[in-house]
């Protein structure tokens, strides 16, 4: 009765049902992600200009792949602040960062450079916790969304207490609803600046070192905050696309399964007909 290598009618029906169920979930997730992305995009648009005051005295952001190629230019001790997401099912946003880190961090370690990781987001723990555990100094996860400046300020305080010659904030920059790029923004603590920094500026109040320390903390908070906004928007856009693809795949799968189901049903009916007819003709004979 059952054709070789083919599932039974009943099995196919069960698979169709479960695929349709999953399809419903992915479609809903896509719509939820689309609406959340709109909110995150608005927050990002409002928050991006806030980064501008920091950009004036820090090197411009670089793509993570370019950063990973020029490791020899890094100072002796480095703190990598990696902004990942708390939730999964959002395409490659986290794995793309983790993949680069898994190569880069051991490479830096081999060159006898200090590397410390400061991870924001639970998925960073999931992807990097095991392979890079020895380098991780702090993980912050499940702080709730949307991100606010108080959180960024609290994290910045922790970051500034870790001694390093440079702080590299690694995050996914939101470019459009279908594109994001892994980006690195580097900040140098006042202690690591050589010579007389900001020599052309006057300082108010004139306790320059204190002002510089405070300014550095504010700059870290600002950069982390805008990076988190970028990352949140990239997460939702990536999730939207991932769920869109999953829904499409699901539909294709259902189509294929229904063809299989119909074929199995037809062959059963044909077999039954043959049985009846041959039975009847046997009686007649």
């Amino acid at each position: 009765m059952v054709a070789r290598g083919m599932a039974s009618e009943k099995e196919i029906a069960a698979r169709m049902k479960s695929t349709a169920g999953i399809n419903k979930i992915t479609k809903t997730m896509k719509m939820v992600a689309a609406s959340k992305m709109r909110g995150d995009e608005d927050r990002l648009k409002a928050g991006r200009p806030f980064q501008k005051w920091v950009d004036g005295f820090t090197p411009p952001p670089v793509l993570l792949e370019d950063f990973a190629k020029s490791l020899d230019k890094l100072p002796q001790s480095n703190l990598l602040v990696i902004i990942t997401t708390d939730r999964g099912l959002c395409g490659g946003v986290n794995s793309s960062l983790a993949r680069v880190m898994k190569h880069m961090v051991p490479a830096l370690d081999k060159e006898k450079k200090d590397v410390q990781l400061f991870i924001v987001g639970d998925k960073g723990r999931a992807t990097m916790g095991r392979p890079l555990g020895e380098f991780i100094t702090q993980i912050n996860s499940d702080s709730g969304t949307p991100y606010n400046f108080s959180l960024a300020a609290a994290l910045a305080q922790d970051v500034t207490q870790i001694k390093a010659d440079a702080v590299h904030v690694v995050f996914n920059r939101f470019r459009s609803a279908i594109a994001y790029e892994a980006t690195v923004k580097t900040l140098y603590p006042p202690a690591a600046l050589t010579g007389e920094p900001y020599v052309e500026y006057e300082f108010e109040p004139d306790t320059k070192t204190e002002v510089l320390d405070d300014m550095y903390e504010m700059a870290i908070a600002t950069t982390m905050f805008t990076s988190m906004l970028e990352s949140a928007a990239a997460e939702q856009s990536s999730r939207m696309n991932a769920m869109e693809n999953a829904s499409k795949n699901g539909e294709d799968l259902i189509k294929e399964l229904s063809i299989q189901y119909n074929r199995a049903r037809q062959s059963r009916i044909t077999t039954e007909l043959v049985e009846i007819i041959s039975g009847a003709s046997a009686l007649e004979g």
Partner: protein
Amino acid sequence: MLVARGIFQLAARRGVHTTRILASTAPAAADASSGDNLILNFSLPAASIYRNKPVASVVIPGLAGEYGVTKNHSPVIAELKAGVVQIVHETGQAPEKFFVSGGFALTHANSVTDIAVVEAAKLEDIDVEEVPKIYAEAMKDYNAAAEGSKEKVEAQIEVEVAKSLAGALGVALT
């Protein structure tokens, strides 16, 4: 930073939602050479109040005292205290006043001034009657907190902010 966070909490509790109204200001074209104007960037984490906006002058509440900035001001980096930022859009006009939390102001050599603060509200949007209540509550917290504790410092910040707010609005505190 603690100053900034203190006022942030205060602002959140106060619930002044001016940022949405302020965000409507569209970015004007940057033109540093436009007459006697300086270019102002005034932004918060949640909104950008002015972006590349030519203004006549701006008074900034520095930690060491208020100071004014006009075109061709010498470069200065200032840490801000909770106080009033006054923006004079055109010479002779009454200034637009914002009450801001702590933050930073950077005046660059090319007559561009960046002001980055954690929270800001238009002075006229602040409820005058709420200020003494905030002050009284902050004083209560301050007196209740143990000497040298984190709560004491936070309450002290709240007291100072409330005082500064009262000063800006001309409210008498008891």
